[in-house]
């Protein structure tokens, strides 16, 4: 009879022993080098929320191109014969998915589960994750970039607006953290 693989046994691709996360300063240094190489080689930094928007624009363009041509925000990306997914951020987006999966699998962290605080049910956590995603991407499009495209990349290139956005993100999160503390602690 099969037993559920424990973290100490090595069983196939997804049963590898779980390793701890790397030290934050080491992770940050690698991240900095990746970001530098991106800026150095291509002049573009890192990002991902732009890809979400472009994928949405692509779907809307397939369903109703006339609607896209009448919506100013979508028009810029997908109007007429423009191809919204012909952009550098699309390969970065899919690369990040594969990269995350690869790291998680190598270090034994790829498994179906829900990461949450101890006092919240799975369903509630899923609902709030979904809501958080809606809010985050809405805000990211309003600010023209998310934590990667604005805070990280813009912070590195010393863009004034990006520093403002970075502090606004932390400010918004700290302001609300107290009221949702039961979710995480």
């Amino acid at each position, binding site marked *: 009879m099969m037993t559920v693989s424990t973290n100490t046994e090595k069983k196939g691709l997804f049963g590898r022993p779980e390793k701890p996360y790397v030290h934050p*300063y080491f992770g940050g240094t690698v991240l900095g080098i990746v970001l530098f190489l991106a800026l150095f080689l291509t002049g573009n930094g890192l990002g991902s929320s732009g890809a979400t928007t472009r994928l949405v624009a692509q779907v809307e363009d397939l369903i109703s191109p006339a609607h896209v041509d009448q919506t100013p925000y979508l028009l810029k990306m997908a109007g007429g014969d423009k191809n919204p997914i012909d952009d550098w951020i699309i390969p970065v987006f899919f690369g990040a998915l594969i990269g995350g999966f690869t790291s*998680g699998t190598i270090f034994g962290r790829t498994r179906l589960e829900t990461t949450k605080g101890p006092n919240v049910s799975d369903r509630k956590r899923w609902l709030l994750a979904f809501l958080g995603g809606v809010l985050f991407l809405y805000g990211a499009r309003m*600010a023209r970039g998310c934590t990667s495209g604005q805070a990280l990349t813009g912070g590195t290139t010393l863009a004034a607006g990006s520093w403002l956005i970075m502090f606004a993100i932390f*400010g918004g999160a700290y302001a*609300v953290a107290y009221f949702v503390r039961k979710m995480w602690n």
Partner: protein
Amino acid sequence: MNFPLPSFLAVSASNPWTYVLFGVIGFAFGFTLEMSGFGNSRKLAAQFYFTDLTVLKVMFTGIAVAMTLTFGAVGLGLLDFSQVWVNLTYVPSGLLGGLIMGVGFIIGGFCPTTSLASASTGKIDGMFFVGGGFVGAFLFGETEKYFTNWYNNAGYYGRLTLMDVFGLPAGVIVLLVVCMALFMFWGAEQLEHIFGKKDLSKEPKLRIYAAGTLFLLALGVALIGSPSTDQKYSKATILRTVDDKPVKYSADEALAQRLVQIVPAELFKTRYDQKVRLTMIDVRPEADYNLFHIRGAINIPAPQLKAHIPSLLATSAANSIYVVISNDETLATQAWKLLVAESLPNVYLLEGGLNNWIAVFGKTDPQIQPLASSLDEQLKYSFPAALGDRYTCADPDPIENEKIEFTPRIQLQLKRDKSGGGCG
């Protein structure tokens, strides 16, 4: 070699390697985030309860390292900063968007890229966040029309950097940011000790040496400084297509071979070209400009030109053409050199200056009389009044001059379209 690599500024089907390179960058990004623990929403949320400040540490280490390396490369003349995407500053939409993102962060437990690392490693909450993200992006696209004017115009400062805000050189800002980051790390560790009951003596000693190294590197960047205009000018190149082959000229060669001096007739015709965005920059003193100038030319006297370069760079589009104008060529050539050194695309100057322009278009104007002046950069004509662009030859008749002939010298070199970069 000049960085960033021109062929990798954007993806293009004609160069499939661009997709590969951006894919590899994304891969490394996702890998790094996952191995730092960003696939776990609880670890991310702990940032906001002071028990585990991994988010702050990873983010600011990343920024400090990338920034030090980037501005080090700029200072050494390896990297052309004007070709690096700098997020444009929109104050109110950035602030409000940032606050909304913060609320989304603490409720959802992720930010967009970390949710990718989470969803791809089988975390169900990560998948829900990604799904919600698509809905949020959809909602923004559909509702933007209700506040499009505010979104696109309010508090817009263009390509504004902290160097412009504080009036300090890049190297000094880099040093200050690194010091701030190191101070924040110290504070973060104290908070983790108080709120997260973390034993700081178990932290690796190596981090102290790493902090010292980073500080010394940043100090080095501050000491190197930014490359001077002369240094940038000596590296500037002008691309031209000769017999269907691309040829690279140094800026001085292009000047000597008169590749960038356009005759009045070509400027005249370019003013009516709908495909390009022409900016005529009149670099003479204001008095001369008020006396006479070509209609549509803007006046930026030569001593003030340098201060206007950031805004010129911020507003330059892929089809922008700049023509520098003075009375003769001397002043315009100096201005041309400055603009080329700062990587403004498609810069030309008016051959023979306005004296030549009037000689071509103003012969029949009875108001304008030739003067016997042999001094360089002085108008060789007398004007009855400072009418500016209200003389006939300030805006020559397009029908009368329709058949005017010339050998074209303008070749549009497509550079990055600034509106297409970045995350946005």
